[in-house]
């Protein structure tokens, strides 16, 4: 089993979008997948509840009151709570094989991401390079000032930017229906998921 932790302390940075898309990517490739929701808002679990029966199945796990027993699956994605205290995140990192940190192109996000990365860096397996951590730029607008700034910010970090997800209306649409771009058919789906495959690859290479 490979466990992927999706974490950032600030809300609205695309944490649930990332967690649901990674889960859908694993399930769509024929892997037995579960999504554990640690966030009080339970958005990931809501997404699973809305998911149509014909879409590749993803098991929802409620970890809002803290991590419980790991389900017997090939891939487990953990949607970490926003506003995490140090003890909480350390426990989740030890649970995970790989950590991905989504962030937005905004000054506020840089501050919260820096704070999170400092905390995360203190956890031994991350500090020692035993567990990989990747940054994801979310809602990126091509050639925007903020986008350039975010790339520069990412360059300064010890961890690599492993994915760039453009800002598109489709994400709001699919989220409402419990779907992801991995569930869209045809060339449109293929084009959209090409943005996510580098992140999937990053996770898979830790397996």
């Amino acid at each position: 089993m490979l466990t992927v932790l999706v974490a950032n302390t600030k809300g609205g940075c695309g944490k649930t979008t990332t967690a649901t898309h990674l889960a859908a990517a694993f399930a769509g490739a024929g892997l037995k997948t579960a999504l554990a929701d640690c966030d009080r808002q339970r958005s990931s679990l809501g997404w699973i509840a809305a998911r149509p029966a014909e879409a590749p199945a993803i098991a929802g796990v409620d970890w809002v009151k803290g991590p419980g027993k790991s389900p017997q699956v090939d891939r487990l994605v953990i949607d970490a709570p926003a506003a995490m205290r140090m003890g909480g995140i350390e426990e989740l990192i030890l649970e995970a094989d790989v950590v991905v940190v989504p962030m937005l192109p905004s000054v506020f996000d840089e501050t919260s991401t820096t704070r999170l990365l400092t905390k995360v860096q203190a956890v031994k397996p991350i500090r020692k390079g035993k567990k990989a951590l990747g940054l994801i730029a979310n809602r990126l607008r091509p050639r925007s000032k903020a986008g350039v700034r975010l790339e520069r910010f990412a360059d300064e970090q010890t961890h690599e930017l492993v994915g760039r997800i453009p800002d598109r209306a489709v994400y709001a649409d699919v989220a409402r229906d419990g779907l992801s771009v991995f569930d869209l058919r045809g060339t449109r789906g293929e084009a959209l998921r090409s943005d996510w495959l580098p992140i999937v690859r990053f996770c898979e290479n830790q397996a």
Partner: protein
Amino acid sequence: MTNDAAGLASEFELKLAGPRAAVLQAFEAFTVRNHGEQVGPMRPARRLSAVYFDTPDRRLLARSAALRVRRENGNFVQALKIARGALDRLEHEATTRGSAPELELLPADIRPVLGALYAEELTPVFATDVQRRRREIVRDDGFGRVSRVELALDEGEVSAGGRTEPILELEVELKQGDRALVFDVGESLIDAGATRIINSSKAARGYQLADGTTPTATKAVKLRLLPNESVGDAFGRIMESVVTQWLANHDVAFDGRDVEGVHQLRVAVRRLRSALTSFGLVLAPERLAWLKGEARWVMAELGPARDLDVFCGEMLPPIAAARLNDAALARLRCTAEDARSAAYERVRVALASPRYARFVLRLTQWLMTRGWHADADAALHLQLGGPLDDFARHVLERRAKAVRKRGRHFADLDIDERHELRKTLKKLRYAVEFFRELYAPKPVKRYLARLEKLQDAFGHMNDMAAAESVLAGIVEQGDARLTEAKGLILGYYAHAASAVEDELSADWQAFAAAEPFWKVHGRC
């Protein structure tokens, strides 16, 4: 080929190569030594061309999988092979609509092995194009069992990015029945001159060509023995790990570009010897003698290459670094490099020899049939069925006793006596390594730490002996320059050895006082 529920086939095959004329002759005039086989006619040659796919970051390769699409009689057939250990692999075949792989055709339980994989990530990596000639060998044992193997001769090439490499190999694949027929056919092919065992797949060679990589050595996988398993079962699992390590490094050693190849092959052979020694009490004496003899021969053939690797790669550099412009040392280095090339040629000759091929083949068969049970008389049978923990305690005690005996009056031992002691320590070490999982980790670690430290100290003394023996082999008498360099090196290592002399006595004392971990639970 046997099928399991998911439609996955488990494949068992043996591959041999050799000089072209010998390989063709072995195929065309094929006869088996045993009686009762029917050798089928040669079927008309078929052209097989296949394209292999992977992701740009080679995730299939990382998971020991190979995915290819092959054109056959106007159809496209996709095949996925996944290696399971050194001897077996899983295979799944399905007809595709076109030349592109179709992942949805793979059985559901194979997907987790491959990980999250999307078809659009797959690109062609390399292609193979061979003419395949086949014939069938059938044996009816007259007792209700029919075995069939296919003998195929593949001749052609593998190509990637404009580069090509020739392929010429014989493949013996079990289609039905008893694996023994594969080994018998293998022996006959060796007799006919196809004497080089090939362990790597065409796919492995394709990847090397495409990515410009060389075959690299692999270490043994850690083994977990269980206290309640039988002695025979435990020996089987040790042998499996030995043979797996052996086969995984065989082609690497033959290739020679990764110096670890010869080293890891030697480690595998040494582990075989120590397994034979540790379990010698439960093995038939004639079998034990034959296996030990062949293993000793392989070690001797590989020895000079390893010694010169160490000499050129580890012993010479510190001295050369201290004396940068020393002409005598520079000449010695050239001489040593020449000797190393010659030693590697000797390795290649040995690894392609009929003696080596037969040894590997018979050892593999002995392992696969758990031949030690068939070898055993009634008394040995009983012991093979006994519990491992009693046996382990017995072996460890014997080894430790041998060390105590050799180490008596430690301070007065001469060079030869010390060498003998070093060897008994090595045997003890192997026994500890084999059986350590049966005991609480902490006492084992403590014991092993003292043993290792002592062995390291002996190692420094052995460095000098090794340098001496290498130099004796490459420096001709009367060559003043080389003799000068030789003196320099021996002086350096003699000094290093004398520096650890005091340490050695202390390490011996510490080891002699170590509490044997296999006795800790003895008293209740």
